[in-house]
């Protein structure tokens, strides 16, 4: 596919995304906002795991930090919601970078365990007595949903709170995806992939692996933290129970199903983790997670390279003019 068609497709998608909130009910608009939020979080995790090969089972913790940053700043400091996003980003970038430094010594599964510990310890830390003054302890913090800015009303554009928040999240998501794309397709992205594919070779080529790996951690945490802040504003509530270990695992499921090392994969993964549990619940009240498991196995079996990989293959087949079957030589990349 040529660069031009990619651009056209992306512009069409953005146009579609802009029309959505006007045809959907506000509850569905809210769900669409959550999809954008998850997409940002998954993009963050994908930079770390997909491109750099570091497995994290603890991104729920960064999501929680971002969420609490937004909630505390809005609740205690009275900051407007939009101002909390860059602060949450900065805090998570720093925390992620610092966590990345010692994590450098850990490879593969050991890193997974260390980050898992981070995810496990997050709820008790948030509940802790010492932080209760800010975090609200077990009770959490209820925040007010932002209204659309006055200038829109003055310009004659009438949006409800859900629609406004959707557009706000969409704007943030577009910016972060462009930044992510620039990061990945340039020198830094090649360095990250080189480290993933062959650590020693990358070092021999003169890549400062320690710096890049910590940086990947920091940037990844930053993305997820921004997602957390947006998510908190959309849900209007944060509590320790919202950020358990399962959230981190859900993120990992999201990037694997969506497609590792793929930008659109983040969006597919977000759609999966947002809607498939709901479908599973509709199908069975007795064992929703068993149904979810069947879906998961189905996806992994049918699309071993994630939805993004399947879409790529499909596109190639369409391009070559024959859907089925491809000869062995053609199927191999």
């Amino acid at each position: 596919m040529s660069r031009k068609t990619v651009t056209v497709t992306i512009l069409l998608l953005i146009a579609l995304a802009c029309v959505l909130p006007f045809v959907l009910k506000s509850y569905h608009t809210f769900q669409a906002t959550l999809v954008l939020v998850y997409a940002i979080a998954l993009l963050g995790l994908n930079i770390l795991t997909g491109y750099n090969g570091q497995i994290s089972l603890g991104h729920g913790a960064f999501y929680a930090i971002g969420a609490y940053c937004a909630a505390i700043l809005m609740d205690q400091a009275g900051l407007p919601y939009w101002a909390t996003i860059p602060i949450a980003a900065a805090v998570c970038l720093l925390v992620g970078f610092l966590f990345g430094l010692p994590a450098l010594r850990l490879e593969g599964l050991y890193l997974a365990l260390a980050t898992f510990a981070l995810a496990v310890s997050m709820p008790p830390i948030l509940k802790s007595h010492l932080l209760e003054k800010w975090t609200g302890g077990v009770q959490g913090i209820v925040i007010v949903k932002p209204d659309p800015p006055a200038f829109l009303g003055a310009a004659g554009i009438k949006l409800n709170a859900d629609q406004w928040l959707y557009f706000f999240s969409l704007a943030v998501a577009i910016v972060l995806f462009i930044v992510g794309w620039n990061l990945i397709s340039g020198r830094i992205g090649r360095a990250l992939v080189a480290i993933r594919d062959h650590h020693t070779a990358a070092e021999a080529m003169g890549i400062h692996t320690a710096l890049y790996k910590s940086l990947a951690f920091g940037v990844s945490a930053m993305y997820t933290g921004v997602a957390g802040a947006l998510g908190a504003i959309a849900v209007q509530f944060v509590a320790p129970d919202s950020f358990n270990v399962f959230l981190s695992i859900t993120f990992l499921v999201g990037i694997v199903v969506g497609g590792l090392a793929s930008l659109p994969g983040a969006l597919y993964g977000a759609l999966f983790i947002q809607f498939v549990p709901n479908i599973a619940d509709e199908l069975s009240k007795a064992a929703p997670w068993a149904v979810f498991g069947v879906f998961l196995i189905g996806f992994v079996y049918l699309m071993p390279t994630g939805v993004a990989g399947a879409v790529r293959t499909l596109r190639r087949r369409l391009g070559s003019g024959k859907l089925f079957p491809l000869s062995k030589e053609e199927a191999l990349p």
Partner: protein
Amino acid sequence: MKSRLVTFAGLLALALAMPVAAQKKYDAGASDKEIKIGNTNPYSGPASAYGAIGKSIAAYFRMVNERGGINGRRINFVTYDDGYSPPKTVEMVRKLVEQDEVLLVFQPLGTPSNTAIQKYMNGKKVPQLFVATGATKWNDPKHFPWTMGWQPNYQTEARIYAKHILDTKPNAKIAVLYQNDDYGKDYLKGFEDGLGAKKNMIVAKASYEVSEPTVDSQILQLKSSGADVFFNITTPKFAAQAIRAAYDTGWKPTHYLNNVSNSVGSVLKPAGLEKAVGVITSAYLKDPTDKRWANDAAMKTWREFMAKYNPEGDLSDPFNVYGYTVAATLEQVLKQCGDTLTRENVMKQAASLKRFRVDTMLPGISITTSPSDFAPIEAVQLERFNGQQFELFGEVISAEQ
């Protein structure tokens, strides 16, 4: 002339009939045929044991529908899994209100989950009725007129223990152990309020964090205060530790244990049944495993209900009695609503229950509410552990003001 009279009579009849027809009033979710009720429950995740409540409520309404519904309308009970995760609760409740357009949201479960939706429900003016949590804050009709609790709240329960201590041991020296969070403090506040002027009977207080491995040092500290009454405000794991530690150190206070941890299987057994003899706690529903109710008519009806409508349900699980009883309470509220099925009237009728009883509640316990009293069950009966099971004793004690 005659025909004119007939016409007049006819018009008069029509005029009289008009207001009758106009009295049928519906909000979203109600019609001549159906009442739509929404609910969220943790069918999956860490708190999925509570899912039994949602299932038994659904079973109850299946039974109601088979009997012909409520005032001729069938109940459409829509329940979603929220996995005990507040963001999911928000999403699901919004789905119930905005897409499914339910008349009310009934029994959403969990304190954080209900906190997450409270502002939304009150903003939308949709009843958040009979929530499944014991926090005291649901009884706040002034600020949240669309939210109401159901079970005895923590403060009510603690006031009842205080009352019992004042009645039986007016010179007691009391030690309190509590979990340092909103739940523990809720109990402590009710207890201190209950003691009132005699608050100085409390000679020692110790708290613990859920992250602490044990409460042994707190027990030693409380024991050394010389207290002869111990109020144990702890969740199951710590309750078991506290019971064992108190016994092992030779401290023999009169031991009050909060209702949260009154499970024989998950608290007293791990602590050691012989170490828990004499522990006092409270109950408001009939315990399905209690032999005294083996031939009780109400529990027989309940068991028949379980066999017919909820056959997968566990007959020893008190949550199944809970679901049945709370669903029966809603049935009464909807009966009282008659043909005026508006959200406002649902709250109004829920706030005007007068000595309403479901016979799976302990004898002598009933529900009374008013526009300023959004705490339905406010009485419990005390029970003491005899080494085998809990035995009810004394009268039903009410904290109703």
